[in-house]
């Protein structure tokens, strides 16, 4: 079953008078439960694809369907609601809310939903806190955590709403190699246990080895789409 479908997606930017073709006609489908890496050098269009899938940028041409819905004509409010309920984000720079502690950062997307009781929120948050092994850091603020710990908080935050897809834009770029591998391993475990579709971008060949499918980009085009039976 397709979770994401990109149909001949193009994205052009204007830098001054110069037109930059970030994506030059990409078609791609992502199935439920996939653990997929989008690989490619800097400027190849990795982040742009993630932005399209994450409903935070619009294509210049082509169609983007998430969970069967064409997101092109959704209003800002509808897109916001869509992101809140169906998409999880893991950022390269972690992007935790600096004034909230670990528990509160993870709880934040649930609070935006305003549908759960405090007890329900606590149950969900604690489940993911245990999964990312941050039980002893609940009261710590982001600036009191290491890079790896911060990214684990971001992973838990992306997962608490049980999204259709989790997008991670170069999640290991700001981490040392060993921590980066641990984070990707954790993402992989979560993909297996939670059956969450997980798409991450990377230009690190060692990191992309963890993925079961690697889509390689160059100059805004898909140059390879490889599936691996076991990583």
């Amino acid at each position, binding site marked *: 079953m397709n979770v994401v479908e990109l149909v001949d997606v193009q994205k052009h930017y204007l830098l001054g008078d110069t037109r930059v073709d970030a994506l030059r006609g990409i078609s791609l489908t992502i199935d439920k439960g996939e653990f997929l890496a989008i690989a490619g050098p800097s400027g190849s269009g990795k982040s742009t694809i993630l932005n399209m899938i*994450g409903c935070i940028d619009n294509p210049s041409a082509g169609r983007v369907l998430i969970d069967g819905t064409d997101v092109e004509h959704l209003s800002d409010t509808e897109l916001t609601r869509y992101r*809140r309920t169906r998409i999880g984000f893991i*950022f390269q720079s972690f992007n935790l*809310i600096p004034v909230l502690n670990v528990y509160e950062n993870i709880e*934040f997307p649930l*609070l935006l939903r305003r549908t759960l009781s405090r007890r329900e929120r606590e149950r969900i948050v604690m489940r993911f806190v245990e999964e990312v092994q941050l039980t002893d850091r609940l009261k710590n603020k982001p600036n009191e955590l290491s890079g790896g710990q911060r990214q684990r908080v971001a992973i838990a935050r992306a997962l608490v709403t049980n999204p259709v897809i989790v997008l991670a834009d170069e999640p290991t770029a700001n981490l040392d190699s060993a921590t980066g591998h641990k984070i990707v391993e954790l993402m992989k475990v979560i993909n297996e246990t939670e059956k969450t579709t997980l798409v991450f971008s990377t230009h690190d060949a060692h990191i992309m080895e963890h993925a079961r499918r690697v889509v390689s980009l160059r100059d805004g085009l898909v140059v390879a789409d490889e599936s691996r039976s076991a990583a």
Partner: protein
Amino acid sequence: MIVFRIALRSLLRRRSRMILIALLVVFGTLLLVFGTTVTRSAAVTSRNSIIRNFTGDFIVYAARSREIPSPFAFNTPLPVVPDVQQVNEFLSAQPEVEATVAFAQNYSLLSVPNATGSVDVPFIFYAADPESYFRMFENVRIVEGQPLTSGPGILISRYQNDHYQKRYGVRLSVGDQVTALGLSGGGGVNALRVTVRGVFEPVHYANVFNYINFMDAASYSQLFNFTGVSGGLPARLEKALAAASESEEGIFDLAGSSVGSIDTTKLRAEAVSGYTMIAVRLKDHATMEAVRARLAAQGWPVKTARWDQASSFFANVASAVQAFIYFATALIFLVVTFIFMNTLVINIIERTGEIGTMRALGAERSFVRNVFLSETLLLNVAACLVGMIASLALVLAGRRTGIPLPETVSQYLVGGGPLPVVLSIGPFITALLVVVAASILATLLPIRVATRITPLAAMNDR
């Protein structure tokens, strides 16, 4: 709840910058509350002072008068109030009226004997029934001799007497008999021997009462030939005289037609006349308009003027001071609002990634708006409360001794002495409303900036 949590902690995170803003708001609040309290106090004191010393709550004057008379203006002789006795009786019968007094303001010369014969010195005065006048107005203190209630004659201001000494080489003493010279309405000069009953000093408004003296009404009436000439004029004549006060041409309305016969039987012989105004003191100032309207409905050829209309210069001084303080406060709040707005914009730019992240995670624009609005209100309302407490302390301290003012300012504003402070809740509520309004105003642009930050900003925030 999460909105307030983020707002409060964001404020604490940037505490050094926010403390500076808070201090500005505290200062602004202090100025607003204390400034408003002082101006309100000045306005109330000024009003009460003028009402108690000069005009009462309102004055009644002849409809023929070209201008609203003022107890301070002596440049134009005022027309006599018609039907003064009936008007006075009507007013005294009103339940809202505490007291009334008819009085006149005029000037004459006093012929004072000296070594070479005599010298004529100018004499500006109020003429009234002393009993009624000094019961209503407590504006002078007798320092030599007796009050005018002791007998007919004049009271002289000590300052004026000193001036006579310096300028004319004469000095009046209690018991002296001098000749007062007055121009009667017919153009003749009347002379009347009057006795100096006492010397006084002003209690309030020394800048006015140093120059004004007093004469009893009976002497005044004789001096200016006012005895027995009021009442009984045909309505058509009164009307034409009133029209003439508006325009010189009005008098020609009388031409070509009879004004009607003057019924001499209606002309009452009155012991005293010539009053140019009646001051009316009310039990409750709030009833002024009702009493004025009731008097107007009687149809007498008289008009009324509020205390502030009859003392426009002094009332204007109080208003000008009030306007200046309001202007200064508004300016400070404008500056604080502008500084705060800029600080908030800088904060928002610094927090682009944070806002973008919230938006990416599903926070709507209204959530972002509420975070920044809460930050602003939390900071400013807290600072406003601190400012209010400081203001309250200052106001309470001021209430004990009054606020000292420079003598000149004090004379014009409240009639002299320290300004009594009137404590009221109004300035505190005003300050809170102003701070809340300024806070909302200050966040309009920053919030516009914040809500336009897209989730893409979070992705790009490296």
